[in-house]
């Protein structure tokens, strides 16, 4: 299947007075239709630049972006504007027109598309229903809460009937509860309308909540990418590990000891693996951390164990855990 978004050797440099800043460096990524693709990284890693290269709000200085097989760099200004109508975007600060009321904000993209006013308003009400804000049609953005503003922005995006939706830190200005409800709404939109969603975030929790795939951006380069499950079970790059181990503050105190991180999938949680291992080896292990995370609707258990001092025994234990078909990795290069 042809990916809906194909990024090839994408680079973006910004020329400042006397220096050149490389925001993106040779990024290659395929995003398939229907995915919810997370792009995660620290602030300044280049993820916002990356998402702006997907609709050419920023023109890349190198490489190509294909949307549905069309090379964006070959489009004229007019063709590019047409293409953008099928690529919606929502933002951290919502970016609503403050002098227009809710329904007129939703009408805006239809106005640009040249739709008749009456029809646009009728459709706008439908979109407001989808996001659950039909009662606020006449309100102005200043009268709405952050979550409501983002819902209006989502209704406005739906109004241009996009095939792709880019979310630039769309929940970063919202409280955890509102974040959850907005993410839920995005997921529904993805499932009901088949819109491919690209989620830019610095929060692993957001990726875990809704994404099927994730790419990790570090200093402008793609550090790692794959399904959320793969990355969560066995992060390879340093940046991926850092993001996944964000919650392990306490473990850093045990730095220098030999620790492993194990991830339980659904089937392995029925067996008392750790208890059985301790009985089998007659050696204690120290449980430093245990948690269950919700990965795209599936519960995943994770645990950090401190192994016995004896190296050989530790190796055997790792082999034992692997034999139980758990995902196991040593936290040797984890330094908090």
């Amino acid at each position, binding site marked *: 299947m042809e990916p809906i978004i194909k990024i090839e050797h994408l680079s973006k440099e910004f020329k400042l007075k006397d220096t050149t800043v490389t925001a993106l460096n040779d990024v290659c990524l395929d995003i398939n239709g229907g995915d919810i693709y997370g792009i995660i990284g620290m602030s300044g890693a280049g993820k916002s630049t990356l998402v702006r290269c997907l*609709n050419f*709000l920023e023109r890349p200085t190198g490489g190509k972006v294909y949307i549905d097989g069309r090379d964006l760099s070959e489009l004229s200004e007019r063709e590019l*504007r*047409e*293409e*953008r*109508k099928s*690529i*919606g*975007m929502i*933002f951290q*600060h919502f*970016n*609503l*027109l*403050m*002098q*227009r*009321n809710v329904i007129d904000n939703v009408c*805006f*993209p239809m*106005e*640009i*598309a040249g739709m008749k006013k009456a029809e646009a308003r009728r459709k706008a009400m439908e979109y407001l229903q989808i996001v659950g804000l039909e009662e606020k049609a006449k309100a*102005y953005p*200043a*009268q709405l809460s952050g979550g409501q503003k983002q819902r209006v*922005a989502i209704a*406005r995006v739906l109004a*241009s009937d996009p095939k792709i939706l*880019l979310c630039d830190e769309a929940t970063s200005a919202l409280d955890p509860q509102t974040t959850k409800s907005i993410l839920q709404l995005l997921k529904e939109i993805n499932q009901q309308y088949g819109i491919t969603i690209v989620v830019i975030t610095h929060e692993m929790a957001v990726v875990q909540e809704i994404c099927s795939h994730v790419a990790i951006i570090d200093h402008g380069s793609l550090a790692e990418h794959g399904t959320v499950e793969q990355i969560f079970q066995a992060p390879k790059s340093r940046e991926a590990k850092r993001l996944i181990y964000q919650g392990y503050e306490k473990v850093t105190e045990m730095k220098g000891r030999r620790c492993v991180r194990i991830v339980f999938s659904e089937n392995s949680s029925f067996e008392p693996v750790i208890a059985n291992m301790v009985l089998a080896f007659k050696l204690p292990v120290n449980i430093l951390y245990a948690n269950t995370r919700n990965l795209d609707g599936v519960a995943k258990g994770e645990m950090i164990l401190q192994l016995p001092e004896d190296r050989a025994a530790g190796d055997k234990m790792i082999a034992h855990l692997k034999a139980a078909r758990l995902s196991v990795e040593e936290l040797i290069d984890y330094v908090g």
Partner: protein
Amino acid sequence: MWDKAVIMMIIEGIGETLYMTLISTLLGYVFGLPLGVLLTVTDKDGIRPNAAVYKVLDTISNIFRSIPFLILLILIQPMTRAIVGRSYGSTAMIVPLTVAAIPYIARMVESSLKEVDHGVIEAAQSMGASNMEIVLKVLITEARTSLIVNATIVTGTILGYSAMAGTVGAGGLGDIAIRYGYYRYQADIMVVTVVILVLLVQIMQGIGMMLSRRFDRRRA
């Protein structure tokens, strides 16, 4: 001395002052608004950066703004004569007043439009809006409150200029104040015209503020 003739003269003066001020401001906006838009759009953070165009417009508007109004008035007298046919009287004064207003208005418009949140412009771009649509439907609409407030300030300034033009026979309240108060030592007439000028500015300010509030939807 407060006979009918003087009262008529003052009423006529008010009329001339308003005529010069409002027509010049209006004409000023006809040219200054597009110029302000161009300055905003071609600036390096604008939606269509063009360093050459920006630099030229920027320099021209700075030059014209730095010439004192009275000097400008005299400098462009040949142009005034060419357009209106004479260089004195209220209609003739509309020419220098408009010329003085244009760069000032362009700057005011530029500063209003630059207040518009860049994110909103970006959102419109992401929806495939053209630059023209962004100017009309985003920049001017979102900045309207600030544009109205600034138009009020502009009108007040032009009113002040029109009074200054009184010294060279522009007609209007400034002319009366100078002729009677300064040349004939009739301070009472001067005081009256000054009070009327103050009232006019106050009224315009009041109307401007009311309009800007009425059109502002940003408050909860």
